[in-house]
């Protein structure tokens, strides 16, 4: 297995596939974070948006992201866009729901304080709402990340477009269990690295700054 991974790494296939997958992930995840956070805030702050979108968001959340693939292929063809669409749909809703929870969970005293201090408009959203909900939003982003990663792998497996998923299905076609397990290990490693290193670090920093943990 190690030899197989070493061989893949040596001829550059592993590197290229990882770069390709991560590139897609960054794009798709970026889009869903950029859309999901505002959507979550809108759902928490506006009754109209909440009434209109919440049932749809909650319902679609129950749909495994890979189920979007057939529709994506119909709409966008066998293209990069189709895979991006699957990744976005897989993580957007999780981010939106967690953001909504984070915003609704803000201490009402802070909102009242902002009201009496006359803080409103963009300054209120950027200076009070976002930072106050940040611990919750971060949880959503973390969740969204793992959903995006899963959606991407599923998409790449089902539909040949390079990336780690394709490397995996290639291994199956070649009856090379070592390659399959090696690539699986790489997928796990990347997922854990981002989750444990990047998000953990951010989370600890934010919780400390916000005074949510005992500072030792």
């Amino acid at each position, binding site marked *: 297995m190690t030899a197989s991974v070493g061989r893949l790494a040596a001829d550059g296939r592993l590197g290229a596939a990882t770069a390709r997958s991560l590139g897609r992930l960054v794009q798709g995840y970026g889009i869903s974070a950029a859309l999901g956070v505002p959507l979550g805030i809108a759902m928490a702050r506006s009754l109209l948006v909440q009434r209109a979108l919440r049932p749809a968001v909650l319902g679609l959340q129950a749909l495994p992201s890979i189920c979007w693939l057939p529709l994506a292929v119909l709409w966008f063809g066998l293209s990069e866009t189709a895979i991006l669409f699957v990744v976005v749909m897989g993580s957007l809703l999780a981010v939106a729901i967690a953001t909504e929870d984070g915003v609704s969970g803000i201490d009402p*005293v802070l909102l009242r304080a902002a009201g009496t201090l006359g803080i409103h408009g963009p300054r209120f959203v950027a200076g009070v709402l976002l930072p106050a909900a940040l611990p919750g939003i971060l949880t959503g982003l973390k969740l969204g990340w793992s959903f995006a990663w899963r959606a991407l792998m599923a998409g790449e497996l089902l539909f040949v477009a390079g990336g780690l998923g394709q490397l995996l299905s290639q291994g199956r076609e070649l009856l090379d269990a070592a390659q399959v397990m090696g690539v699986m290990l790489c997928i796990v490693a990347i997922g854990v690295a981002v989750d444990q290193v990047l998000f953990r670090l951010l989370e600890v920093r934010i919780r400390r*700054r916000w*005074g949510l943990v005992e500072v030792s």
Partner: protein
Amino acid sequence: MRPRAGRPSHIPGFRAGRQAHGIAHSLRMWTELLARLLGRPVRGRLVPHPARLGPPKIDVFRVGHRFANRVVALRDVNVAVHSGEFVCLVGPSGCGKTTLLYALAGHIAPSGGRISVDGVQVTGPGPDRLLVFQEPALFPWLTVRQNLVFALRSRGLGRAEADARAREYVHLVHLDGFEDTLPHQLSGGMRMRVQLARALAMDPAVLLMDEPFAALDAQTRSHMHELLQRIWTRDRKTVVFVTHDVREALVLGDRVVVMAARPGRVLHDLEVHLPRPRDPDDPALVEMSRLVREELRRAERAAAEAAAPGEAPDATRPPDDGAPRRSAPALGAPL
């Protein structure tokens, strides 16, 4: 049918509850006072607040409020606060004092009556009125200085100006050296001082304070009283201060508006004549506080009797009168 007690006059400052059998009560109060005057020297005085001339800063006119669950939080409340006055609203929990304060702040729209500041009706929170909360209500991700600067910048102050002002007010509440500390690293009293500094730095025309020191320990609270008195004698801001602690109200207020519960209403509007700075252990103040508390207890008993007439029959009450018995306030009599 007997006219219903407490029909309001249209003079602001008129207190509801004047009743025929209140005279007997007020006579008793006078004799009590006379005995006290003869017995020992009384330094301070507690007198009914006379209706002042001129347009008030804050005018609460026939305000009533009923919550969605039909509970009457306020009934026919009339209070006129003039510029530069320090008014304490004091009363038991459920007397509507906090509701009234939030209505002043514009966070609650009362279901009846009118509240105006400088003749303009209150419809929402405004920059002229600032609410100080029981909780510190600081933004936890901002340092002490940033908390002040952020609030000041939202009022359109430039960075340098906001910085200077923040420093000035942090100094005023004796927190020099803590500018770059996060709120959760401060003690409760210090957090409260930061909130006070932030409120004062915003320079509102009216400061509305909702039991701001209730969660503090006695020692810290008395320090905060000294600080607030010193700042108030310096700036002479209009302050409306809500508390359930009669002693605190008497230490801080020029005027003490005593409220009673069920329904929330004004029982007395009293002026406190005591030199500042006031000592909470001043015998005159302690005596006043005892009288006010007694008055509150009496009102509570009367309300309980009215709520359950069968249990506590009242000889002074006409048997055919279906209207609930009001408390018998000693209006016109100094306490």
